[in-house]
């Protein structure tokens, strides 16, 4: 399955960046949960160990085999989520958390990678310069069904993460100006319909809050305001590790998950933000550079979609916590606490490394 030549070709730089970002995340999770003994940090460390196993398992199987399995994996997750919808238990207003053994798992996180694989498979044989209506419809359907199930849970944030997979694939396959225009019109119509018929009141409120967080500082705008205060009061060098009062005194909501970057900004200031952003950007750049090194279309799609997915989640989160985007519950891959998020990210990164290390392989 994996030979010594390929072992040498493993992108150790990308792997190191992945681990470094994870460890930075664990440090921040420790700070965010220090008042309760840092429990989440130790758990995340275990998840990282599990993630590394997933990572090496992923690269040990040729991505072509993953391609071959893609429809089965996809179908499995679809069934799983449909079952979840019927039997799932509700945690904080959402059905996505189920008990797997003794650990909570969120299958929709892993579903993102399953959909990513499925689209890569669809486009691996697609050679036309521009995406046809048929392939657009097919990929929209493949993304739309799991996305719809997740919206029904309801988990707006995770569902949104399917959009960069779909649009990433379509952009790569080529979109004519006409298609882009049609999609924009469709988006406006769907958006209006969604606002009026599908979005829940609390979700609408969050979007309104983004426009004016001060209008209700004790209500929905509270989280954004507290996050802005934490980030802004960090200043240039921060309050010091474990010393950020916004975090320590629990003014900052969801400190170890969605708002982990605000903990960074408060503890380490702009200097810390700059350092982590640099490390994260280096990782993203390394992933995007793999796109140019893959030997076939499937590899290109895998590397590109994985890079796009992680970029999307990172950017949405860092803009969300400063109030530039509505609060949608999208964590930062690797930095935020969360087992299934970490596992699916390691899975996606494994696929990228997998593609790159097998670029010279002759099969």
């Amino acid at each position, binding site marked *: 399955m994996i030979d010594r030549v390929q072992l040498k070709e493993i992108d150790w730089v990308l792997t190191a960046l992945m681990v470094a970002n994870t460890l930075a995340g664990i440090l921040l999770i420790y700070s965010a949960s220090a008042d309760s003994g840092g429990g989440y940090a130790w758990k995340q460390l275990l998840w990282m160990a599990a993630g590394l196993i997933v990572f090496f398992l992923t690269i040990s199987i040729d991505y*072509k085999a993953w391609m071959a399995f893609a429809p089965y994996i996809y179908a499995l997750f679809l069934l799983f989520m449909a079952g979840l919808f019927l039997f799932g238990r509700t945690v904080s207003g959402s059905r996505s958390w189920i008990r797997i053994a003794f650990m909570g798992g969120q299958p929709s996180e892993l579903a993102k990678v399953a959909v990513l694989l499925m689209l890569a498979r669809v486009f691996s044989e697609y*050679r036309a*310069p521009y995406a046809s209506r048929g392939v657009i419809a097919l990929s929209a359907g493949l993304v739309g069904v799991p996305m719809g199930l997740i919206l029904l849970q309801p988990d707006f944030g995770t569902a949104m993460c399917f959009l960069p997979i779909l649009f*990433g694939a379509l*952009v*790569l396959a*080529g979109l004519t100006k006409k298609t882009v225009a049609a999609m924009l019109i469709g988006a406006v119509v769907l958006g209006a319909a969604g606002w009026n018929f599908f979005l829940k009141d609390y979700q609408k409120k969050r979007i309104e809050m983004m426009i004016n967080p001060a209008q209700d500082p*004790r209500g929905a705008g509270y989280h954004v305001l*507290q996050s*802005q*205060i*934490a*980030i*802004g*009061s*960090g*200043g*240039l060098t921060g309050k010091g590790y474990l010393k950020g*009062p*916004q975090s320590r*005194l*629990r*003014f900052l909501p969801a400190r170890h998950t969605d708002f982990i970057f605000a903990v960074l*900004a408060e503890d380490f*200031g*702009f200097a810390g*933000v*700059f350092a982590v*952003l640099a490390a*994260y*950007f280096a990782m*993203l*750049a390394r992933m*995007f550079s793999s*796109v*140019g090194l893959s*030997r*076939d*279309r499937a590899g*290109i799609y895998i590397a*590109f979609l994985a*890079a*796009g997915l992680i*970029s999307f989640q990172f*950017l949405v989160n*860092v*803009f969300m916590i*400063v109030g*530039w985007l509505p609060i949608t519950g999208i964590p930062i891959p690797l930095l935020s606490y969360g087992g299934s998020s970490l596992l699916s990210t390691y899975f996606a990164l494994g696929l990228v490394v997998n593609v790159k290390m097998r670029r010279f392989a*002759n*099969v």
Partner: protein
Amino acid sequence: MSDKGIYEDFSLVRRRARRIFVIVAVLCGLTLAVYWKIQILDYKKYESLAVANRTREIILPAPRAILTDRTGDIILADNRAAFKASFIRENTRDEAASIARVASLLELDPSVVASRIEKYKSWPAFRPIVVKDRLTFEEVARIEARKNDLPELIVETEPRRLYPRQSFCSHVLGYLQEADANDLKERARELRPGDMVGKMGIEQGYDRRIAGREGRVIDVVDSLGRKQSELERVDPVPGKKLALTIDYDLQAKAEELLAGREGAIVVLDPSNGEILALASFPTFDPNKFITRFTPEEWQSFVNNPDNPLLNRALQGQYSPGSLFKPVMGIAALDSRTIGLETTFYCGGGIEIYGALRRCWNEAGHGALSLRDAIRYSCNVFFYQLGRRIPIDTIARYAEMMGLGRKTGVDIPGEKEGLVPSTRWKKTTRNEEWYPGETISVAIGQGPLQVTPLQMAVLTARLANRGRGIRPHLVLGASEEPPGDSALNVRPEVFEQVIEGMWRSVNEGGTGQGARVEGFAACGKTGSTQTISRETAERIGTGAKAAKTHSWFTGFAPRAQPRLVVTVLVEYGGGGGATAAPIAGKLFSLYKSNHDRPRSTQGN
């Protein structure tokens, strides 16, 4: 898969991927810019928000100064710990529901609680809003028992004013009420909404000194408002004990003598202006007003036609009546309108300017000098003076003696009274002065108005043979009078008037009710019609309205005056019958309190 892939041209696809990467890179750059703005450019704004977020200032109210009588031993105003129930908006999710629960627990109308909370809506949500004060122990226990399911309701303690002798000295002490919009505007730096401020008397006049300096604690709290640590503490500084000039015995006696009537008594020391007693009736219990709410008692006081909150000694304006005659005497002698031995004949009445003016004694007093005219309070004598002295000269002497302007007493609210003159009539009524009006003024009637305190101060000036004083209620307050301290009046002028006042009390004059053996009191009585007898009969208001206000003012002893007493009893009848005996009892009490040790030594 086939080998074809290796030779396939992916440049188009890769170009598209690079374009997306460029967008990602640009957005990462934008991220840096956004965080630079928030963390570096707006740092100060967010840092101050963060500080406000985690710190909480708690005000520690300072106990008000203890007020005592002049010995410093008898406490007139004290403090004790009191409990109040306060509402914390931050600790509730559903404000309407918790208002209803709080109201039922405190047995209040929900609208009262709601309006209270509405009033302080602009406050930060963590700051407690007082919804009920003067809690009973039972109420405190009830709130404490519900502590866990009603986190929005807390019990706070505060020092509360206590007047241990209830209504004793109430018009001097005043009372407290929650600062109103006007107070908060005028004293924006010192007061905050919910503070209690003095609203009358010493409590108002010396509010800044009595209030002390509040302390504060700055706590660090977590997002649930739980205290984590104390950042700063400034202990409150209580107001410094204040001794009043009030003589407990005289004050108690004055109040006892006035009880059941309407009127005022002022007792002061003419040598320095210290007010030894100041009573006004009807009176009130200031303890009942120390609440942030408007109790029924308050409503009933405000609506009471007898107006117990009016301090009649400072704010009641009355015709001086015959008390004005000594002023007329000084004006006449000093202006040399008459000589020391000039006499006028009183036949019980006199026709002046075509109208018959009666003396109170219809049998007439015969020929008398100024001394005996004061002694018998003969009207005809003073009508004759009124015919000879122009109104503006009278006004000049009245003002010199301190009428028509504030005495400068150290508590707020005193009235100026009114001294009429030709200019006054021109400016207020746009009419010429009629000489006939001067005749009324000459016996203290007409537009002339004085307060009992002004009469006491005027009497002190007489007693001091022209030297003025500033009446005051706090030991050590300024004694310098507003206006001239000494008068440019010949000494023998005062001696003539004082002789008349002495005779009035000691030689069978109208003031003989004030006579005290061995205490050489000098005084003057007055009985002023509130409405004319004819009007009273016409509207039939009965005996009370037809009765005159009863006045007495005097000092003792004659040679070295130590005491001035001024008494006004509304509808009290004749000054000689009602007011003079009251003054006599006060002279007598003072004498026995102060002279007994000496006399026992002498024996």
